[in-house]
Structure formats: structure tokens, C-alpha cells
């Protein structure tokens, strides 16, 4: 992958994580994934259940070893490191966990929880360390007086802030955010999202933001990776990927996300993907998405040959043989209530290769 600009902070090269499940069968949670994380960006990682995004997050945070491949962090291959060597580098990449109730040790005070990373690296001593902990609490919007309290005394949102404070303690360069708000109430989610954004700009952090909520990922990320069944199917700028997806799965995902606008919801067609995600133990041959894909030619190239993840347009990668047939998003959702009553397109996609108006043959129509 050629790339202009500075060296990426993290380079993931052909990483796989396989779990042996029974004799002869392996669960390929992550299968041959390659991408870069650029310094200072927020890279969103999105996908549905079983796609491997959480596993990928844990691989990058080195919480579980890779089965094959390399993860190069700031020039150092993490997969080669063991024990103390690896631990020494951990200060540069941290993680925020999904479950605010399980990610804090119930037996430790808030102060101890946040101080643990500092203690591990011998940062600060006595009073100085206390001060740092209090500072961190303030930074995440909590009162410094909370140091002597226990996690069970706090709400979900507050606990998540504690987890964020812990992740910030070592001044890491990269933070892997694994579904940081999905376990929180809706009204609290935006507090935490705004906090994460503010912190990123304030401390010049890099985020790998993992979530299943596409609207959220679009809001917070600069670039987005879409995963399906252990593989990356599309990589693009946030804006690009939502206006002009180049993979049918991405297109279907976008179409399925409900929007809080009753007029729009009634007008748009839900592209109903048939069936559900197959088991990652025996993925379909060729392109993994082909059995559910409205554009697939099967039997044909789609069932025989796995499409490689390649740059189709500048900065936009997709793994699809028919990437140029994917209809655009925007107001020109061409299937609103069937072709006859399609509302006029308000935004015209720039790319001349886009189909306007008629959906491609075989694209699922609403109603049945």
C-alpha cells in the first residue's frame, strides 16, 4: 500500500487470529487483515457481530497474541516481543473497555485504579502521584475527592470516565476504544463521546474506535474500516464511505441504520439483507459476502475468487469485484418506495461512475 505522508503510528500486516474449536476446525476470528493507523487520527472500526472487530482491537492492544502476521508500533514489531520488553512498550498504547461494570476492580479504590499504571512504570512518587491521579480525575470531569471511593458507588457513565482516566495516565499515543459507550444510557453516551473528542484534541491522541453503531463511528472518526467475517471489506474517509460506499455490505449496513426522521424512514427502503452472518468457522468460499450479496455473480467470480482489498479510488479501498456497481447514498437513495415515486435527488454524487435512479438488477426491492 503506497501512502503519502509520515510513517503511520501502527502498521498491521496480514494479521490473523485463529482459535481451534474442535478437531480440524478453526474459528478464523481475524483473517489476514492489513491496514495502517495514522498518527493523530481517529480510525473507526465497524462491523456486526462475529466480524472480528473486538478481537482485532485486542490484538492491537496486545492483550492476546496473533496467530500470524505483524503489528508494527512506531517502528517496533510488537509480535516479536515478550514479557518485560512488551510490558515496557505498553505505556504507549492503552485501551478503554466496553463494560464499565466489569473493567474496574471492585476491590480497589478509584485512586488505586488510576494509579496502577503509574505504579507499574514508577511514575511519580507519593504526593506527586496523588496529584497526578487527581489531575486525571479532573480532566475526565470527575471530582478529585472521588479517589477514596469504590467503583460500585458510581454510575455507568462515571465508571467509564474512571476507565478513561486510567487509560490516559501514561500519556499513551494510541488508545483502543472498544465500544466505549454501548453499555451506557443514551443521554450519557453523548457526554462520553464529547469527552473523548475533547481529550483527543487536547492531548493529541490517536484512537482506534471500535463500535457497531455506524452513525456514531461516522460522527467521531476521520477514516472508517468496515469488517465482515474476519476481513476488512472497505476502508475510506468518513465522508466518502457514507456518501459513496464501494462495497455492497457497507451499502446494506448504511441502509439498515435507522434515522430519527419519520418522513425519511417511511420513504426509504430498507435493503433487507437476506439471512444472517454465517459462522466464522467455515466461511463461504470466494468472497465471504457473496451468499447474501445482491450484486454477486455466483456461481461466478464471486464464489470462486476472494476479492483483494485494493485501492479503487484515492484513499478508498474496497474488496469487491463489482465495486463500481454499488449505488450511492445521499438523498438519491434510488429505491424509495419503488422507482415510480422516487423523490428528486437533492445531492448529486460527484463520481460519474455512480448509477442514479435505477437500482442495478437484482438489488432487493421493498415489500414482498
Amino acid at each position: 500500500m503506497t501512502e503519502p505522508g509520515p510513517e503511520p503510528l501502527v502498521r498491521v500486516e496480514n494479521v490473523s487470529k485463529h482459535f481451534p474449536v474442535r478437531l480440524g476446525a478453526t474459528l478464523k476470528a481475524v483473517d489476514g487483515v492489513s491496514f495502517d493507523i495514522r498518527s493523530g487520527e481517529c480510525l473507526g472500526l465497524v462491523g456486526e457481530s462475529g466480524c472480528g472487530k473486538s478481537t482485532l482491537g485486542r490484538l492491537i492492544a496486545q492483550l492476546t497474541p496473533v496467530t500470524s502476521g505483524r503489528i508494527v508500533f512506531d517502528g517496533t514489531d510488537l509480535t516479536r516481543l515478550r514479557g518485560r520488553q512488551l510490558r515496557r512498550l505498553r505505556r504507549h498504547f492503552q485501551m478503554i473497555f466496553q463494560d464499565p461494570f466489569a473493567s474496574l476492580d471492585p476491590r480497589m479504590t478509584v485512586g488505586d485504579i488510576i494509579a496502577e499504571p503509574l505504579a507499574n512504570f514508577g511514575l511519580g512518587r507519593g504526593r506527586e502521584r496523588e496529584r497526578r491521579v487527581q489531575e486525571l480525575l479532573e480532566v475526565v470531569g470527575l471530582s478529585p475527592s472521588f479517589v477514596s471511593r469504590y467503583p460500585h458507588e458510581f454510575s455507568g457513565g462515571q465508571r467509564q470516565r474512571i476507565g478513561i482516566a486510567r487509560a490516559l495516565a501514561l500519556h499513551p499515543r494510541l488508545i483502543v476504544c472498544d465500544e466505549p459507550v454501548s453499555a451506557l444510557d443514551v443521554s450519557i453516551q453523548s457526554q462520553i463521546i464529547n469527552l473523548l473528542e475533547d481529550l483527543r484534541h487536547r492531548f493529541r491522541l490517536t484512537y482506534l474506535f471500535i463500535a457497531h453503531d455506524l452513525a456514531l463511528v461516522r460522527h467521531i472518526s476521520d477514516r472508517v474500516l468496515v469488517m465482515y467475517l474476519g476481513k476488512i471489506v472497505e476502508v475510506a474517509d468518513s465522508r466518502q464511505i457514507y456518501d459513496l460506499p464501494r462495497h455492497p455490505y457497507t451499502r446494506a449496513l448504511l441502509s439498515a441504520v435507522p434515522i430519527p426522521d419519520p418522513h425519511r424512514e417511511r420513504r426509504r427502503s430498507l435493503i433487507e439483507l437476506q439471512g444472517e452472518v454465517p459462522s466464522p468457522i467455515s466461511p463461504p468460499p470466494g468472497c465471504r459476502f457473496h451468499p447474501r450479496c445482491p450484486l454477486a455473480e455466483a456461481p461466478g467470480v464471486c464464489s470462486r475468487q476472494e476479492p483483494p482489498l485494493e485501492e479503487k479510488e484515492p484513499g478508498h479501498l474496497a474488496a469487491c469485484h463489482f465495486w463500481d456497481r454499488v449505488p450511492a447514498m445521499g438523498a438519491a437513495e434510488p429505491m424509495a418506495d419503488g422507482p415510480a415515486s422516487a423523490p428528486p435527488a437533492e445531492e448529486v454524487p460527484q463520481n460519474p461512475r455512480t448509477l442514479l435512479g435505477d437500482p442495478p438488477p437484482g438489488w432487493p426491492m421493498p415489500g414482498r
Partner: protein
Amino acid sequence: MGTQPVAVTSLLAEPMVRRRAGLWTDAWRRLRRNRLALAAAAYLLALVGVAVLAAFWTPYSTTHQGVVLPYQGPTAAHPLGGDALGRDVLSRLMGGAQISLLVGVGTQVVVLVLGVPLGLLAGYFRGWLDAALSLVINIFYGVPDLLVALILIVLLGHSGLGQIIFAIAVTRWMDMARLVRGQAMSLREREFVEAARCCGSGTFKILSRHLLPNALGPIIVQATLGIPQAILFEAFLSFLGLGVQPPTPSWGSMAADGVQAIRISPHIVLAPTIALSVTLMAFNFVGDGLRDALDPRQRR
């Protein structure tokens, strides 16, 4: 992106911290409602008091013979009468309490020292360490307790309390190790352990600061319930003449001595037997009470 810099510090005013009881407070509250456990605990406290007292003073000597008429029944001066050799039963009972408690608690201390670290290591690391430990545990389970204890006592020379404690502990450590192993295995999967690894904590820190404190509840319950088992075992050994040697009083040996005279002077065998039974029951009630109080399912 970003228009208004909505001050992050505006959130500093988070005033609301829900005050909910933690594990211990919650448990204590539940325990307080358990009348039986409380009564049993009171009894045990009194027993400890008696045992401590016996170290300094008993109504009569625990070993001198002839302080009372042999086989004499309970009287005002000797509330529990005299045994076959004319020793005051009450005084010997008090002395026996010392032995029972020392053995009971002492064995559990050894069990904890042996079982907890092994269990933690096996449960956290799995792999060959776990396989090896499981093998050893199963071997120990395979050999009958009495045999092991006998062999050890003979080998070590059965004179001291220490030897007895060790011998009993050797037959009982496996339960604790298995319990701790199970706890470690489930705790290592928890997110806060992952978080600890993520922020650079080493194995020792994880085991001591994260796993052990979170496994403390079941460990305490197990240790508490192990005490009566040990006491009973000691009594049994003493009954067979293999425990503490005469003239040191042990409830077991007292019972053994009294069995022959059960028709003429039942008090000789009844006193230590009842004391033993009540003590065992008390420990079991307290242990059960602790287990119920600490049950995570009951916690919100």
C-alpha cells in the same frame, strides 16, 4: 470539526455519586439478620475466651490426678465430675478447647499457605502447571486421609501439636487449592484483569492485587468450614490414641477414656462429646452464614 469548546471542566460538578453498599457492608448486613449464625458466632467467641483463659487458669489442674473422686458425678465443686483417674473434667474440657481451636485454626493456616498460592498459579497460568497440580491433587484425594495422617505422624514422631496440625493439613489442602484454582480461572477472564495487563501490571501484581482480593469471599468461607473438619479429625486421632499424648487433655482422648465407663459415669464421655458437637455445629452455622452473606447472586 469542533465549534464551541464546551469546557470539559463543566462536568466537574458531577455531584451525584450513588451511595451503595459494597461487598463487605452488604454481607455484614445480611449476616446480622442470620440469628443462628450470630448465636453460633457468640458461642465461638465465648469458646475462644475459655481457651485463652485456660492458658492461665483452670478451676483445678488439667493433669493432676486425684483432685476429685474417680468416676464421681457432677457436684457443686466439680460441675462436670471426675474422670477415671480422678481428674476434674471441667478443667480438662477447658484445656481440650485449647487443643481443638489450635488444631482447627492451625490446620487452616497451613491449608491456606499451601492451597492458595498453588491454586492461584494453576488457575491463572493453566497449561502444564495446571495439569501437574491437578495430578498431584488427584493423587492426594486417592489416598485415604487416615492413612496419610498416620504415616506422617509416625514419621514425624507424634509428640507435638505442630506435627498433628501438619499431618491433618496435608489431607485437607486440596479442597482449598481446587477452590482457588476455580476462582482464578474465572477471574482471569474478567475485564479488569485484562485492563491490569493492559496498563503494564506483571503477573505477581495481578495475582496478589486483583485475583486474591476478589477470591477472598469463597476462601474465607472454605477456611471457616474447614475448621470443624480439622477439629473432628484431631478428635478422631486422639480417640484412637494417635493425637496429643496423655496427660494433655483433648476432647477426643477424653471421650476415648470415658467410653468404658459409659454406664456408670456417662458424664465422662458426654462432656467432651457434647462440647465437640456443639462446637462443630457452631462453626458450620457461621460458615454457612458467611457463604449466604457473601453470595454474589444476592448482590445487586
